[in-house]
């Protein structure tokens, strides 16, 4: 740059806030002698109108082209002074601030030492500011469609709220039907209202709204782009049934000759056919062919379903289909899965017939479930005693350290249902009773009055002696080791991240916390955001959550997404990383360093390329770029090193 550098330095008294400890006039006098400084002034309040006017006047009249204000923290007034510069046509990044209030006058006892320190900071700013480059904020266009990944209660709620805002939304659900875990529940705590009764209407609404598009039996394959401009590739798995033609009459299901396949949706408590709908209220209520078990696909013979289908909807030739859709925002609502208790042989799950999981019990007590609402042992008899074991896989160093949150209250609900259905002895083995939600403690009190036996002690082992199950525990209230004989054991298995979480985290380029759930941008202030702009979280994919919390988060995430896409434009901060292609050796060190996947590798040019819309300007890539090709705007190596020289010049 051939232009002569003319720096204006303005030392603020901040009333007496600075002037009490710093000899502002001396600092200004010192500054006036530094290289390139044209004017140096001290003034009562730089941030007030007269102070700002001083800067404007010098820029206009004295041709000042770099501004240094020594006052408070840049975290306070940096934007103020940038605007001042811009108001008279000087780029806001030709401005630098020296923090002589928070970092000098307010924290230093000795006036002389404070003045010296203030001089050092001013010298550094004056040294640095000539190296600063003009930077400009930019905007990118914003697509206003929203993708919701996961069609459980959180995703459904989020989708409906976005749709309610008159924006298009797409739900991608990997199962043949939306509904998620909630669809499997019988009653919901603490009100004990029927789960299906409150969920089904929402599911149906998703199917019916014009601006909601459902991709069931589908998965997100690839995500490109950045906030406002995501391009998502969705794999529609071959359903073998043409959804447009199928009327959902169910004839095919009744005729299917393969009837002995374990029914996953019923937690394997019963069997299903090869062509099936997971449950009666499924949305879409249309079948899918399980190709692994279908005779047509395994032996090439059969095809009965196709023959009986009145609308010719069965399509054996169907293949996986890849579709791409564009979105401005993505909401992740992939939920959780249940811990598999067979991992710990001490609980006897998978070994003893009558040790079951909470969700199996849930299906058992459901009127439309495999036992038509009856609690039955494997032999068909009703159990006389049932043990409910809390914290299976939760709060356990060997499995998951965290508390799964909803299982205490769910266990209370199941205890109530067990008592109601069997009138037998019900034992609840707990470590602590954590009933934190609104109305939950009251629910606990109610159940306690129902004659359930609460044993404060973790059910550490389930054994069988002479055909009788025994639950072993250390009763911490009695301080005694106990063995409790029961007919049935219900394990309150932990809530854990779904198996796909890791893969999806990579696809979306979002982080997971140590427990494996997706990581929010900030646990308190940004609980629904991820570190990647435009991608939000809700429900149990972020951590264990019950229904009220999941619904609240679904609505919250929808609000985040709506707020984002409604702005119409994406603002891109000028503080970003930039790669000098001439210098970049293509070592790819930076690529892994970027938490936002903002850096990609150009195979042809063999250089790193920054997507400035994704970049947040942290400069970490720059800090480890071995060639200096990667620079951090407004924080270049040269600028920082010069600033270091500057602070040491005094």
């Amino acid at each position, binding site marked *: 740059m051939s232009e002569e550098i003319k720096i204006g330095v303005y030392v603020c008294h901040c009333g007496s806030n600075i002037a009490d400890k710093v000899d502002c006039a001396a600092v200004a006098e010192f500054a006036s002698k530094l290289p390139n400084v044209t004017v140096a002034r001290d003034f009562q309040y730089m941030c007030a109108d007269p102070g700002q006017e001083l800067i404007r006047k010098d820029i206009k009249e004295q041709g000042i082209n770099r501004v240094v204000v020594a006052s408070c923290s840049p975290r306070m007034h940096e934007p103020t002074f940038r605007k001042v510069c811009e108001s008279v046509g000087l780029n806001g990044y030709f401005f630098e601030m020296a923090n002589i209030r928070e970092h000098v006058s307010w924290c230093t006892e000795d006036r002389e030492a404070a003045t010296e320190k203030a001089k050092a900071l001013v010298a550094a700013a004056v040294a640095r500011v000539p190296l600063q480059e003009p930077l400009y904020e930019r905007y990118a266009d914003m697509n206003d469609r929203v993708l919701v990944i996961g069609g459980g209660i959180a995703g459904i709620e989020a989708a409906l709220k976005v749709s309610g805002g008159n924006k298009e939304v797409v739900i991608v659900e990997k199962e043949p039907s939306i509904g998620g875990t909630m669809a499997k529940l019988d009653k919901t705590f603490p009100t004990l209202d029927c789960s299906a009764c409150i969920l089904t209407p929402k599911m149906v609404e998703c199917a019916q709204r014009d601006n909601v598009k459902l991709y069931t039996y589908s998965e997100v394959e690839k995500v490109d782009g950045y906030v406002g401009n995501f391009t998502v590739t969705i794999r529609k798995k071959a359903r073998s049934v043409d959804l447009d033609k199928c009327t959902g009459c169910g004839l095919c299901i009744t005729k299917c000759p393969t009837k002995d396949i374990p029914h996953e949706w019923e937690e394997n408590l019963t069997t299903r056919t090869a062509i099936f709908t997971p449950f009666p209220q499924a949305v879409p209520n249309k079948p899918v062919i399980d190709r692994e078990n279908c005779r047509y696909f395994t032996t090439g013979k059969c095809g009965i379903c196709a023959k009986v289908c009145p609308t010719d909807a069965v399509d054996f030739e169907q293949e996986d289909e890849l579709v791409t859709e564009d979105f401005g925002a993505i909401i992740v609502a992939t939920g959780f899965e249940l811990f598999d208790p067979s991992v710990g042989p001490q609980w006897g799950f998978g070994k003893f017939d009558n040790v079951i999981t909470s969700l199996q019990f849930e299906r058992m007590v459901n009127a439309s479930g495999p036992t038509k609402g009856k609690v039955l042992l494997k032999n068909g008899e009703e159990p006389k005693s049932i043990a409910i074991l809390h914290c299976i896989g939760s709060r356990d160093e060997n499995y998951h350290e965290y508390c799964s949150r909803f299982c205490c209250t769910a266990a209370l609900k199941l205890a109530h249902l067990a008592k109601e259905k069997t009138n037998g002895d019900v034992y609840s083995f707990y470590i602590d009773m954590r009933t934190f939600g609104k109305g939950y403690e009251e629910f606990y009190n109610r159940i306690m009055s129902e004659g359930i036996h609460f044993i404060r002690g973790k059910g550490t082992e389930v054994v069988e002696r002479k055909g009788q199950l025994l639950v072993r525990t250390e009763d911490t209230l009695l301080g005694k080791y106990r063995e409790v004989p029961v007919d049935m054991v219900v394990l309150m298995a932990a809530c854990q991240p779904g198996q796909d979480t890791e893969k999806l985290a990579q696809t979306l380029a979002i982080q997971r916390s140590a427990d494996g759930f997706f990581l929010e941008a900030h646990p308190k202030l940004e609980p629904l955001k991820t570190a990647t702009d435009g991608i939000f979280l809700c429900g149990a994919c972020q951590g264990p959550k019950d229904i009220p919390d999941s619904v609240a988060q679904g609505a919250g995430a929808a609000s985040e997404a709506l707020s984002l896409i409604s702005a119409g434009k994406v603002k891109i901060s000028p503080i970003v990383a930039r790669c000098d292609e001439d*210098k970049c*050796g293509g*070592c*790819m*060190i930076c*690529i*892994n*360093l970027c938490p936002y996947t903002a850096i990609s590798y150009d195979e042809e040019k*063999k250089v790193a390329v920054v997507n400035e819309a994704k970049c947040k300007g942290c400069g970490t890539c720059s800090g480890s770029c071995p060639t*200096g090709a990667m620079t951090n705007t407004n924080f270049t190596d040269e600028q920082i090193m010069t600033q270091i020289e500057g602070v040491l010049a005094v």
Partner: protein
Amino acid sequence: MSDKKLKLGLYWAAGCGGCDVAVLDIDEKILDVAEVADIHFWPIAMDFKYKDVAAMDDGFLDVCFLNGAIRNSENKEVAELLRAKSKVLVALGTCACYGGVIGLANFCTREEILETAFKKTVSTDNPEGIIPQPVSEVDGCELHIPEVYEAVYKLDDFVNVDYYLPGCPPRAELIAKAIDAIVAGQLPEPGSVLLPAKTVCDECKREKKDRHVDEFKRPWELIPDEEKCLLDQGLVCMGPATRAGCGAACTNVNMPCRGCYGPAEGVIDQGAKAMSAVAVTAVSTNLAEMEKVISQVKDPAGTFYMYGLPNSLLRGRQMKEAK
């Protein structure tokens, strides 16, 4: 180019002679050079003498290639003399440009070096504890040897250098190319490095992928995959931080780069940059684990500054006694 032949000079200061061998390695091309240029000074091959140089007018030589670092007052004086006699001075080789391997001596003091060489080494038989002296008398004959400097310096610490051609040694093709550029009068801006701005990674054909290291390995600890990046395989490699030019000679034979072509364009401290790039390949969210992995790199300063300690920000070990 004028009709008159170019006047060339070549010289080494504190170096190993490898740069001169590299000049010889241009092979038959040296005969082409002889056609367009007269070599007025080249101690390895010619019988011109120092006094001939001293007698030259200032700026007599069109171009002088000087290799080797500055280790004692003689090196410095010759460098100053040749600077005066040359229109263009080229620092040839890493020692002249950045200090080179012998710059590792800046980890020690002169005293430590003398003590080790003449007293501590196991085969030395020196009951009287003699240390060679600058001036000594033997049987009435007074003998002089120069005193070595406390540290190793690069050439531009003492004289103005017009061009830098680093490499240990610079590849013969690069020397030939530089000579061609000189002959054609097509030299870039003074102060430039006569090499591409890219780094060794750009020249290395190995596949870079993972950029995450679970364990740093020493070259003798594994037989590396011949296709994959050595750094990805846990070998500390300076390739990312080293100027291109060598054609990835070391990684071609399965050995990691040690940075002999010096820093990338504009980089102030090659070792610090390389260290920063290598260290972050071990990043994890487990601080203790990370510390364990990174501590597997045993001699980071010696490794990352193997060819450029005198060119680093700190130039060497600070002279306080090692604790």
